[in-house]
C-alpha cells in the first residue's frame, strides 16, 4: 500500500526523550518538521497546523534500526515482500532495516539493488537499505560489483544465508570494500563441521537424535574473519553470534584494534537449545540456540559493547514449510515485531542493562556501524523517531503479525515494550491501535 508521508509538522510532547547519540535522557518535547528533527527540549511551542501527539509516560527515541533482515522479494513473495516487511518493521519500532541479498535471484547487481530501493519507497513504511551480495549469485567464486551496488543504494555486502568459505575471497572482499567504506557482513559457519546439523550439538540434540552444529563451527570462522580484518584493515561485521567462544575471540580482536563489529539476535539473547524440546521447528534457526552459558556471555558482551548491536535476522517462512519433521524444516524465525519487546523484557527488566544502553544498541550503534542516517535526535537529523511504551504487558500472537509469516519461537509469550508510534522521514508509518 503506497502512502505519501504526511507533510505537517509533528510535536511529540511530554515523553521521556532518550537520545543515546548525545547522552540525552530527560522529559522533553520533540518537534519534527520538514522531514527533520527540528528541536528537542522541554516546553516547545506548537507550530501552525502541527499534529500534537501526547507522549507522556512513554519513551521517545531515535527510530530503531535493524541491520539484518530477510525480505523475500524477489522470489518468495508468499513469505514476505519489501512492503510487508517494511510495514512489520515499522510496527516493531524500526525506522530503517537492511535487507539481505539472498533473494531469488540474488541481489548481486545494481539493477536488483535499485529494485529493492524502489519497492521500499513505494511502500512508504520503514526505510529499506539493501545489502548487496559479496559474490555473484552468492556462489562464493567471483566478487559482485560493489561500486555499482553502492551507487544504487547498497549500504554493505554479505553472502548471508551462507558463509564465505574461501578465505581468499573474504580477504579480497574486505580489501575491495575499503574503497567504498562499507562493512562486509559474514555468516560465520564452517560448512564441513556444520554439515547436516539442525540444532546445537549438545545434550538436547543427543536426546532427540538430531545432528548437532558444534559452536566451533562458528568460532573457527569468527577467528578467521578477525584475522583477515587485521590483515586487510577492512571492516568485517559478524552476523548473529551465538557462542561464548565467539565472544572471546571477538573481544581479543577488538583489543588488538581490528575493525570488527558484531550483532546478536534477541532470540540468542533469550533462548537456549531447550526451546527445541519436543522437536519444535519454530526454534530451529542457523546459528542455532545454544546453552545457558552462551546466553549469559552474549548478554555480557552486548552490555560491554564487545557485541555492538542487536539485529533480528528476521527470516520469514511459509507456515507449511515449518509444519514438518525437524530435520526437514527450513532454518529461521521472524523477529521484527518482537525484537524490542523481547530485548526490553529480558535485558532491561531483567537488569542486564539500562534502557538508554539498549536503545543505543538498537538504534545509534547500528546506524554508526553501517554509516546510516538516523540513530540520533540531534536537530537536523532525519525525522526517524519511535515512541515506545515500556509499561503495559502484551502477549505475542503470531496471527496478529503484520509480517506475512508466523514462524516465531515467542508465540504466547508475555512481553513488555512495544512501539506505539513510528515516524519515518517526518510521516507516521505506524500507530498502535489505529489500524494503520
Amino acid at each position: 500500500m503506497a502512502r505519501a508521508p504526511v507533510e505537517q509538522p509533528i510535536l511529540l510532547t511530554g515523553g521521556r526523550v532518550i537520545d543515546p547519540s548525545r547522552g540525552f535522557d530527560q522529559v522533553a518535547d520533540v518537534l519534527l518538521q520538514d522531514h527533520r528533527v527540528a528541536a528537542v527540549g522541554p516546553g516547545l511551542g506548537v507550530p501552525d497546523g502541527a499534529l500534537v501527539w501526547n507522549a507522556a509516560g512513554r519513551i521517545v527515541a531515535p527510530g530503531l534500526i535493524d541491520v539484518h533482515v530477510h525480505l523475500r522479494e524477489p522470489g518468495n513473495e508468499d513469505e514476505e515482500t519489501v512492503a510487508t516487511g517494511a510495514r512489520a518493521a515499522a510496527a516493531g519500532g524500526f525506522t530503517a532495516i537492511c535487507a539481505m541479498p539472498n533473494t531469488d535471484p540474488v541481489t548481486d547487481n545494481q539493477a536488483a539493488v535499485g529494485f529493492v530501493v524502489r519497492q521500499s519507497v513505494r511502500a512508504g513504511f520503514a526505510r529499506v537499505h539493501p545489502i548487496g551480495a559479496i559474490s555473484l549469485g552468492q556462489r562464493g567464486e567471483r566478487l559482485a560489483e560493489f561500486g555499482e551496488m553502492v551507487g544504487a543504494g547498497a549500504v554493505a555486502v554479505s553472502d548471508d544465508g551462507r558463509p564465505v568459505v574461501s578465505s581468499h575471497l573474504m580477504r579480497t572482499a574486505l580489501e575491495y570494500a575499503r574503497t567504498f567504506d562499507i562493512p562486509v557482513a559474514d555468516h560465520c559457519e564452517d560448512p564441513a563441521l556444520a554439515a547436516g546439523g539442525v540444532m546445537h550439538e549438545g545434550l538436547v540434540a543427543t536426546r532427540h537424535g538430531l545432528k548437532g552444529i558444534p559452536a566451533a563451527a562458528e568460532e573457527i570462522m569468527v577467528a578467521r574473519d578477525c584475522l583477515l580484518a587485521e590483515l586487510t584493515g577492512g571492516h568485517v561485521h559478524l552476523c548473529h553470534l551465538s557462542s561464548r567462544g565467539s565472544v572471546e575471540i571477538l573481544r581479543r580482536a577488538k583489543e588488538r584494534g581490528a575493525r570488527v563489529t558484531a550483532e546478536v539476535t534477541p532470540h540468542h539473547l533469550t533462548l537456549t537449545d531447550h526451546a527445541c524440546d519436543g522437536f519444535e521447528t519454530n526454534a530451529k534457526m542457523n546459528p542455532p540456540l545454544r546453552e545457558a552459558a552462551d546466553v549469559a556471555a552474549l548478554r555480557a558482551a552486548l552490555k560491554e559493547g564487545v557485541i555492538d548491536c542487536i539485529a533480528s535476522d528476521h527470516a520469514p517462512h511459509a507456515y507449511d514449510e515449518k509444519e514438518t519433521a525437524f530435520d526437514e524444516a527450513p532454518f529461521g524465525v521472524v523477529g521484527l515485531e518482537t525484537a524490542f519487546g523481547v530485548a526490553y523484557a529480558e535485558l532491561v527488566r531483567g537488569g542486564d542493562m539500562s534502557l538508554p544502553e539498549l536503545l543505543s544498541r538498537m538504534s545509534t550503534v547500528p546506524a554508526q556501524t553501517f554509516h546510516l542516517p538516523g540513530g540520533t535526535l540531534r536537530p537536523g537529523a532525519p525525522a526517524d523517531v519511535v515512541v515506545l511504551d515500556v509499561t503495559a504487558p502484551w502477549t505475542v500472537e503470531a496471527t496478529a503479525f503484520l509480517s506475512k509469516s508466523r514462524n516465531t519461537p515467542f508465540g504466547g509469550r508475555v512481553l513488555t515494550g512495544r512501539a506505539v508510534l513510528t515516524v519515518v522521514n517526518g510521516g507516521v508509518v505506524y500507530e498502535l491501535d489505529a489500524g494503520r
Partner: protein
Amino acid sequence: MTATPTLDKDLLGLEYLTAEQINLILDTAEPFKEVSERTIKKVPALRGKTIVNLFFEASTRTRISFEFAEKRLSADTVNVASTGSSVQKGETLVDTARNLEAMRIDMVVMRHSASGAAQFLGKRIRSNVINAGDGQHEHPTQGLLDLLTLRDKHGTIAGLKVCLVGDILHSRVARSNIWGLLKLGAEVAVCGPHTLMPRGIEELGVKTFRRIEDAIAWADALNVLRLQLERMERGFIPSLREYYRVFGVTAERLEHAAKPITIMHPGPMNRGVEIDSRVADGPHSVILDQVTNGVAVRMAVLYLLAGGRPELADAAKRGPAD
C-alpha cells in the same frame, strides 16, 4: 492396592515412560509369549481393529514382527511402504496424517527417517501411533524387547551392568535402551570410537569405556549394535577391518571375562565386523530370544494401547430392565 498404570495414546519413546509403565508392558508381554507357543497362534483381543504399518524406511524384520503381533491379535493390517525418493517427505508427512485420519484407522505403526516424525504424527491424528523407529531418536519396542530379554535371563534389571557397543551416535536403539535401562535401575555404559559417541552422554548417567576390553571386564551383558558401512564412507572410522580389530566382540576377548556375559544384538548382524559368529551363535547369546520376545512385546503394546470406550461399559453393566 496401587492402580494399574495406563499408557498414553501413543508409544513414542522410552524417554517418556515411567518405570511402572515399562514394567506394565513387560509383564503384559509374558502371557503373549505363551500365545505364540500355541498351535493356533491367535487370540481375538483386537478383532475389528485396523492397523496400518507405515514404513517410510525399508525394514523387513521389524515390520514382519509387528505384522505377526497384529495378526495374532486378530487385527486387520495394511502395509504401506513409501520409497522416500519420489516423494517430498515434508508434504507426505502432513498429508499422510490427514489421510489416515480421514480413513478412521485405529492404529498406526510408523517407521520414518526423521527424528520426531512419530511425535509429529501422533499430535495430528486421533489414532494410536506406535514409533517403530524415527530417525536417530528412539525405537521403543526394540528397547522394550531388549529389557524383557535381559529380565528373563537375569531375573531383574536393577543393578544389572549393561554396556552398549558401537555406533551410539546414530543409534535409536541405543537411545531407547539407555532410557529403559536407566529407568529400571540398571547401570549403563557405552563403548565405541569417540567419533561415534554423542555429546552429553555422561550427563545422562552413562559410563563410557574407551576400550572394549574394559567394557567386557565390567559388564554383565553387552548389547552389540550394528555398524553401518556408511559410517566408514562418511569418515567416522577409517575401515570396518580396523573397527573389528579394535572394538569387535570376539570369542577371544570374551574368554578373558571373569563371568559369562549375555550377548545381545538388535540385528541384522554384520558377522565379522562388530561381532564374531562364534559369539553370536554361542551359549550366552540371547539374540534369537530377542526376536521371539519382539513379537510378544509388540502384542503387549498393541493390546495395551488399544483401549476401548469405557463409557459403553456402564450401559453394558446396567443390562436389560428386570
